[in-house]
């Protein structure tokens, strides 16, 4: 595959920025637009950019964990978070809110909806990675044939 220098450099430049934005979206999700799904999609798009310029190998080097492990872990985290309130006698998906005063950050509010969002984030990232993995293997085998 011929690599384009400009695309290569700009993706290297953008990748971490996009991941930070995706994490931002994940954490503000409870009260503002965002959330696990949107955050996961943004992170997935960053990985897709990596895939476009560097192929499956560069995606694998960016995320060392196998995609299905991320997918499975996300599914477990999200469903356990949904189940815990039921076991405590509340409604499913019910959540509690906490507020802390942290140094530097000031007042921080977190809800137990966050783990659920993290689970969803992991599922979406895992799914994108699985898809890229599937595409990547095809492209390489075609290259080998040519």
């Amino acid at each position: 595959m011929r690599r384009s220098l400009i695309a290569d450099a700009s993706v290297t430049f953008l990748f971490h920025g996009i991941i930070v934005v995706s994490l931002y979206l994940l954490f503000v999700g409870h009260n503002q637009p965002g959330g696990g799904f949107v955050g996961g999609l943004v992170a997935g798009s960053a990985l897709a950019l990596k895939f476009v310029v560097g192929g499956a190998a560069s995606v694998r080097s960016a995320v060392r964990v196998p995609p299905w492990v991320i997918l499975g872990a996300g599914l477990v985290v999200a469903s356990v978070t949904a189940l815990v309130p039921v076991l405590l006698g509340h409604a499913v998906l019910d959540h509690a809110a906490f507020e802390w005063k942290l140094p530097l950050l000031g007042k921080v509010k977190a809800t137990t909806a966050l783990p659920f969002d993290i689970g969803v984030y992991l599922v979406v990232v895992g799914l994108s990675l699985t898809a890229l993995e599937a595409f990547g293997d095809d492209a390489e085998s075609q290259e080998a044939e040519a």
Partner: protein
Amino acid sequence: MTALVVLPILLPLLGAGLSILIGRRALGQRTLSVAVLATIVTLAAVLLVRVDRDGPVVVQAGGWPAPFGISLVADRFAAIMVLVSSAMLLAVMLYAIGQGGVERERVGFHPVYLVLGAGVCLAFLTGDLFTLYVAFEVMLVASYVLITMGGRADQIRAGMTYVVISLIASALFVVALAFVYSATGTINMADLAGKMAELSPGVRTGLSLLLLAVFGVKAALFPLFFWLPDSYPTAPGPVTAIFAGLLTKVGVYAIIRSQLLLFPPDTFPGGLLLVVAGLTMAIGVFGALAQDDVKRILSFHIVSQIGYMVMGLGLYTLAGLAGAVFYIVHHIVVKTALFLMAGLIERRGGSSRLREVGGFVRSAPVLALLFALPALSLAGLPPFSGFVAKFALVQAAIGESQWPILVVSLAVSLLTMLSMTKIWAGVFWYDADDTLVREPDPNERLGGPPLMVFATAAVVLVSVAVMVAAAPLYALAERTAADLLNPAGYVEAVLGTGAGGGAP
């Protein structure tokens, strides 16, 4: 109490996640899947008993009260469907484990199968239209993977049809949701029940027909059935069985639920439903007569049988609906059994074409028996459960003096008998016309691996149990039908004060 409604949806999802993490350890995956599904069957049985005794159970997710939050509602109809479906999911899982094949070769089978189960349970238990859409999507995403599992060219081709049709139906569903929301400002089904009545009859009819078309694609109603006989037979055996047993019935459930709960009786499209039901029955059965492959014959019969359920709804009487509910229960069990049987035939004979297999009645008498019982039941011979179901529908049709649909339904019954006889003659009674594709293994005295035969026998036993317990089951179906015709109880359970499931 509320856990009973939530667990059938969340446990399979949790199981799917764990199953992915377990990965290639086959024993772990199998134990997990069977344990999860067996737990759900137990929970669903308890739920049905409770709901039948104490009325609908409502859970408001996150403690947000209806109509703003997501409501999960288990009334009699939903609880019956969850119980029957989860029992079939468990039996087919055991069958898949016994078969090996796709279950052993593809590490993704167990997680995807559990996700399918979660989608089916969510579709039955949800109390709002958007969550119903989500449930359909969860189910479809899983079914896309399952239907092409194996990766053969013909599976991908058939899978394409299925994916395209499902995507179009889903897009139409979202459009319908947008219309419903813009007309009424809510998508909570109980809330809609009240708000729909305030709309002008024209708008209401439009929305009702749009939803009927959307669910009609899923349920494979005439004229939207063409995708089904094309895509089901190519999937791996256990996958075809669970699709045949459950997926179209989720569509029928959605039709019955939406038409009866959302829309007031004055715009009920009863005449249209009866015409569609008659055509669905007739076209399905004629299609089946033209086939010479066990799986394709049975696939066309799915279409034909859907007609009977819609007929019960179209009659719009207590007897008709009770018949439809009973018919759905009978049909899910019998159809799953027949498709599991088709998988055994294909495994033993190397083919499911009638010309290429034969003589099973001598070489595998157990299989012959396990086919004969559900086949006779499907055709509606007394004393099987199919007879009870059809008798109830026929009686309801006589009660309403709907002669055309009565004649069609009886004629289709006869033709169903004819095509079951064709399978019996081709596979079991006579020797193969052409040379056998594969000489059956004489050491398999049961006719297949013990676990596969056992799972099939279990489903056949359930269908016999439906026959034996027909009287109490029909009484339950009548109570369910009474609930469906008078949705006030459902609405009050969801919207009424104190309905929140342990909300803070």
